[in-house]
């Protein structure tokens, strides 16, 4: 007799049409690129190309994920990336308004570059949210109806809690970080108000405590193996790249090492390692 529910998620059709979402992602890529070209006038010549390459890489990663078979890890990864894109877009629009308020030019007239940056980033946020709503990631769990073991349920709840706690700090930092030189100051080294910094640091530490300790010891051994791969990949990448960049900066080949850029790349590589180990 055949077992029921076996690998049921693999037979589920994709909710998103790859062709349709490709168009949406194309809009995001064009908006990001346009925005980079506008705000990069004070930076070095290679920076717009670097940022453009990173944006296209992220959009390409979302598109590439959609080409895979429908599965929960895929939906989760795409949802997370769309969330980041939406957050980035809305944060820049808020920063533009704050800049206009600070310079007392909110009533206008606005420079055309400001209008373009505001509109393009608003469009990025709206398109990303629209894509997220279209994806309906919450249905992946509701529709399956499969029973969950207590440890799996607990691990999921803790992961969601950890995400919410860290997310609250990130949102505060996104909207609180402010620079007159760049519309988006999240990954810059510009000053952060003290109360926002304290909130962001506290939420990060609490979220990591939940994730790295409480979740880790609630998850089953298969999840822990995947997390071990994630940690190993992240650490290996950070360990290998950082000294090379440091030496290259001293030789004048590269700018000073950017801790947050290294962190983002390490997290991205770790996430790929996690999903590879979890769903291979």
């Amino acid at each position, binding site marked *: 007799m055949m*077992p029921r529910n076996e690998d049921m998620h693999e037979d589920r059709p994709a909710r998103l049409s790859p062709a349709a979402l490709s168009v949406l992602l194309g809009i995001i890529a064009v908006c990001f690129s346009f925005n980079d070209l506008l705000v990069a006038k004070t930076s070095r010549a290679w920076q717009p190309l670097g940022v453009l390459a990173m944006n296209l890489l992220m959009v390409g990663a979302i598109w590439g994920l959609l080409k895979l078979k429908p599965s929960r890890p895929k939906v989760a990864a795409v949802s997370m990336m769309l969330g980041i894109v939406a957050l980035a877009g809305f944060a820049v629009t808020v920063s533009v308004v704050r800049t206009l308020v600070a310079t007392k030019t909110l009533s206008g007239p606005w420079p055309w570059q400001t209008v373009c940056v505001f509109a393009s980033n608003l469009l990025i946020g709206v398109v990303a949210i629209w894509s997220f709503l279209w994806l309906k990631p919450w249905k992946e769990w509701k529709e399956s109806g499969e029973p969950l*073991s207590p440890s*799996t349920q607990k691990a999921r709840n803790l992961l969601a809690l950890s995400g919410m706690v860290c997310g609250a700090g990130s949102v505060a930092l996104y909207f609180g970080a402010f620079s007159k030189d760049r519309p988006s100051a999240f990954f810059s080294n510009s000053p952060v108000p003290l109360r926002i910094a304290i909130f962001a640091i506290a939420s990060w530490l609490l979220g990591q405590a939940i994730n790295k300790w409480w979740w880790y010891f609630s998850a089953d051994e298969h999840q822990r193996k995947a997390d071990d791969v994630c940690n190993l990949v992240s650490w290996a990448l950070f360990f290998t790249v950082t000294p090379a960049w440091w030496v290259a900066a001293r030789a004048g080949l590269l700018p000073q090492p950017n801790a947050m850029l290294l962190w983002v790349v390490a997290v991205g590589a770790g996430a790929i390692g996690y999903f590879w180990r*979890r769903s291979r």
Partner: protein
Amino acid sequence: MKNRLKVLRAERNWSQAELALRLDVSRQAVNAIETGKHDPSLQLVFRIARLFEIPIEEIFNDAQE
């Protein structure tokens, strides 16, 4: 490591999710064990043997044999 988990599960008409619930692991863990992509810990091996009420050797076997 080869195993008969899928056969034993099918004999009892359990889904992967139902077996996962009984073993207190995730469905992905059961799938990974069945397909030989994850070697379970000794603790989980004993739990599986107790659940099916058969010796470990009748569920898992070393591929070298």
